[in-house]
């Protein structure tokens, strides 16, 4: 931290020091350690923090650790470490995003997988080591910001520093001589300069008015420092907002088939992930019904034929069970706000409607079954479980094609996302579906280990395909399957994140603070006036910037222009004195 007051334990300042400015006078000297003056590199002996550790005692050691932690070098190191630590999360599948892929990875890599898991490489962003890095970083940040804020508070309330003895030593310097005929005395010159600088946004102080060399000290750009502080504090704000979202938010998924509806209660969700402080009565019991789902596919382009162009869900919503129903549309990129949640359209697909009779001739299942699309032609995998079938439970796996085309080899492939020739391709199983044990089973996976295939050996009677309205008699009197119709469904994400607004506010503040910090110049100007023996008033000025400031030179030129306008504009009236005031630029 460049502005932490230096304790004896602090071995070295991290600020870019500016030897060139140190001779500039007492002000320059005091400030050199705080980054005033242009950055000069590699002139410094590389003072490492390798000072032998004196016996510090407990408190001393803590203090030493604190100084180390809040040093700029540590901040830099932790930042770079954070960048490196974030990378594995993009190389390995992550549980929060893709739990199924992680399970698959563990099955595929029985040797290395568990080791990776032990090091939390599947949960990188909630892992101990990742958290440790960013928490340390934020502690360091607080340790930086607090003293810096105090320092800045003092700087803002104090007067501009004492005028250096030799302004010509400053990075920018200028001077001009005012002919005595102009009748600008040294006192009025510094007063004028102070007024002009004030109008330019400088804080000014006039000193030595009675002396032979009165001067003005001026400083501006306090917003730069404030911007820096706002930026760093806002980062903490963003982190806290994210944490608030994680604690009090919730998030769930729901699939709704056309005509069906959803009520915002725990049982209504297919999947639900509450934040750690979630309470069930946070859920407002609004309801959504999917009236229709319209899709548009590209029918004009040769190269992108069948690419989706638009998805629109038409929903009937009710804020509460008693409220008036209202019709609303939901699109990708245009979430719906209802009952404190946002509802997002994140997926869609087909739900073929089937009727399945069991061996006893009763209807064991009737209705839409959600299929999961795998490609642009909506080649969708299907699993049908019929736990109510008697005497044997039935199960089917297979796929659904909206537009089935049989290739020359007899294999059917999907050729279009719209249902021009919908067909079901199923393999039948019977036996115990294993649903009674009570442990949750994935509805999209059929565990065939406890089931018997309807086809055995030569007999492939268990494999069949169905076109629209066709039905199939299962072998051995197990029942029948009928393909009755087709519906579409939407997959919704429903999300409540109370930290979101905070995150937006703080990140906006961060970017404003950042811009102020990077683009506002923090500058000091001193102007001094004196009277030459021949009666002319001599004015000289010097400028110093904090850190790098490419516009310092321009500022000096602008000041010269201002001064010329102030003092020399009416010079034309005094024709004989014209041109006798010469600006000398010393660089």
């Amino acid at each position, binding site marked *: 931290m460049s502005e932490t007051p230096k304790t004896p334990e602090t071995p070295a300042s991290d600020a870019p020091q500016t030897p060139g400015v140190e001779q500039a006078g007492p002000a320059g000297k005091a400030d050199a350690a705080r980054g005033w003056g242009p950055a000069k590199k590699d002139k410094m002996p590389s003072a490492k923090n390798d000072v032998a550790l004196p016996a510090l005692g407990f408190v001393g050691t803590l203090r030493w650790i604190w100084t180390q932690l809040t040093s700029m070098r540590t901040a830099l190191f932790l930042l770079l470490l954070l960048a490196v630590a974030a990378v594995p999360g993009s190389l390995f599948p992550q549980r929060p995003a893709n739990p199924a892929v992680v399970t698959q990875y563990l099955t595929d890599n029985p040797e290395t997988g568990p080791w990776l898991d032990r090091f939390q490489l599947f949960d990188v962003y909630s892992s101990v080591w990742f958290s440790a890095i960013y928490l340390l970083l934020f502690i360091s940040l607080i340790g930086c910001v607090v003293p810096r804020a105090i320092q800045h508070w003092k700087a803002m309330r104090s007067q501009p520093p004492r005028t250096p003895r030799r302004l010509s030593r400053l990075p920018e310097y200028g001077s001009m001589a005012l002919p005595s005929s102009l009748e600008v005395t040294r006192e009025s010159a510094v007063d004028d300069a102070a007024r002009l600088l004030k109008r330019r946004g400088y804080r000014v102080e006039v000193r030595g008015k009675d002396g032979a060399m009165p001067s003005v000290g001026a400083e501006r750009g306090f917003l730069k420092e404030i911007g820096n502080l706002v930026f760093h504090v806002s980062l903490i704000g963003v982190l806290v907002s994210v944490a608030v979202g994680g604690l009090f938010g919730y998030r769930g998924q729901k699939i709704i088939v056309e005509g069906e509806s959803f009520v915002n209660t725990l049982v209504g969700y297919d999947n639900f992930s509450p934040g750690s402080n979630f309470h069930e009565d946070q859920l407002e019991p609004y309801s959504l019904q999917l009236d229709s789902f319209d899709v*548009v596919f590209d029918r004009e382009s040769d190269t992108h034929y069948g690419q989706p162009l638009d998805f629109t869900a038409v929903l009937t919503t009710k804020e509460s069970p008693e409220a008036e129903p209202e019709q609303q549309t939901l699109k990708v990129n245009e979430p719906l706000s209802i009952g404190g949640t946002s509802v997002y359209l994140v997926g869609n697909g087909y739900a073929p409607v089937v009727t399945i009779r069991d061996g006893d001739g009763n209807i064991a299942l009737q209705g839409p079954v959600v299929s999961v699309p795998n490609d642009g032609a909506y080649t969708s995998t299907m699993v049908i479980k019929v736990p109510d079938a008697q005497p044997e439970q039935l199960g089917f796996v297979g796929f659904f094609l909206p537009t089935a085309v049989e290739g020359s080899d007899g294999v059917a492939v999907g050729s279009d996302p719209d249902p021009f020739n919908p067909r079901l391709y199923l393999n039948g199983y019977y036996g115990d579906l294993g649903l009674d044990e009570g442990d949750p089973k994935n509805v999209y996976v059929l565990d065939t280990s406890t089931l018997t295939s309807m086809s055995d050996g030569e007999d492939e009677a268990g494999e069949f395909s169905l076109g629209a309205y066709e039905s199939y008699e299962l072998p051995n009197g197990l029942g029948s399957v009928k393909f009755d119709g087709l519906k579409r469904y939407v997959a919704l994400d429903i999300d409540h994140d109370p930290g979101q607004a905070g995150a937006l506010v703080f990140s906006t503040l961060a970017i404003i603070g950042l811009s102020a910090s990077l683009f506002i110049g923090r500058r000091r100007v001193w102007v001094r006036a004196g009277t030459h023996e021949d009666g002319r008033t001599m004015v000289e000025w010097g400028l110093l910037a904090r850190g790098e400031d490419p516009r310092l030179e321009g500022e000096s030129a602008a000041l010269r222009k201002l001064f010329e306008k102030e003092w020399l504009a009416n010079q034309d009236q005094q024709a004989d004195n014209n041109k006798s005031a010469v600006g000398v630029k010393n660089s």
Partner: protein
Amino acid sequence: MPSIDETLGQYSELFILLAAMAYTVAFIAFCWDLATSSKTIRSVESRLAREQSEQKVLAGAGAGTSATGSAGKAGAGASVETADEAMVYTKERRVAARIGVAITIVAALVHAAGVISRAIAAHRVPWGNMYEFCTTGGLVVAVVFLVVLTRKDVRFLGSFVIGLVVIMLCAAAIGFPTPVAHLVPALQSYWLIIHVSIAVIASALFTLTFAMSVLQLLQANREARARAGQPERMGFLRLVPSALSLENFAYRVNAIAFVLWTFTLMAGAIWAEKAWGRYWGWDTKEVWTFVIWVVYAGYLHARATRGWTGTRAAWLSIVGYLCVVFNFTIVNVFFSGLHSYSGIQ
């Protein structure tokens, strides 16, 4: 939705190819400039050095006269002369560089025609897939370069920058060819316009600073060799400003680019919230955008940390840019994630 104009789309692709060829010629011109100018400088210098040493003989151990002062110093190896620190134009005629700039202007015009005709053909902004990011991004790089040229003499960057533009256009035409098409629903959002355009501009600026940081390292190495009295190896670096002014210039541009990148990150998060229901989910693309952001934050910190300015900061700037390239190429093509908009089938 209005139909795609496929004929215009084909013209657009042709324009891009023509622009790529023109840039290649400009690239050669800039290389030629570096080669010949440094040769000229060297021969002038060696002549001056000879004259000076003759003078020395005449004038005893006296210093060089004002006429040969600066060249004499360089010839003696006491200090390294480099191009003007302020990067302002001098009177010196560099024919090859002028040709390079002229052809770059022509190429950029053809390139702009290609990008604009693609936008008209598709009735939307031309940055919806990898092909379009490369072609539009390349145009931004070239235009930013030309704009900077109006204020500073950065022609020494020409071969690097235009070389990168050629690579981007070749990558588009060979690596990611994609005919014009409508956008998929996930990309139909005004956030595409905001988020991606700012990302492209930030990347273009990072491209410039990357070139400057590489030159800075080479220049620092050359300066060190000169200080150690070793002979110089890369004569073309005489056209390049000193390592310190490269560093300062790169810092200023990087600061602007970093603010834009911060904005890209935020706009991306807002868009992700709209499209996927969460503003941050550590999707691969998000991870890498974050990594890039942190690396450049590290770069800015490095500039305020003693012992980390100069060469180390330059390395961070280079690493940051490599992450940008990685994020754009490897992550888009090989990593699966929600951002599967590369347009590659």
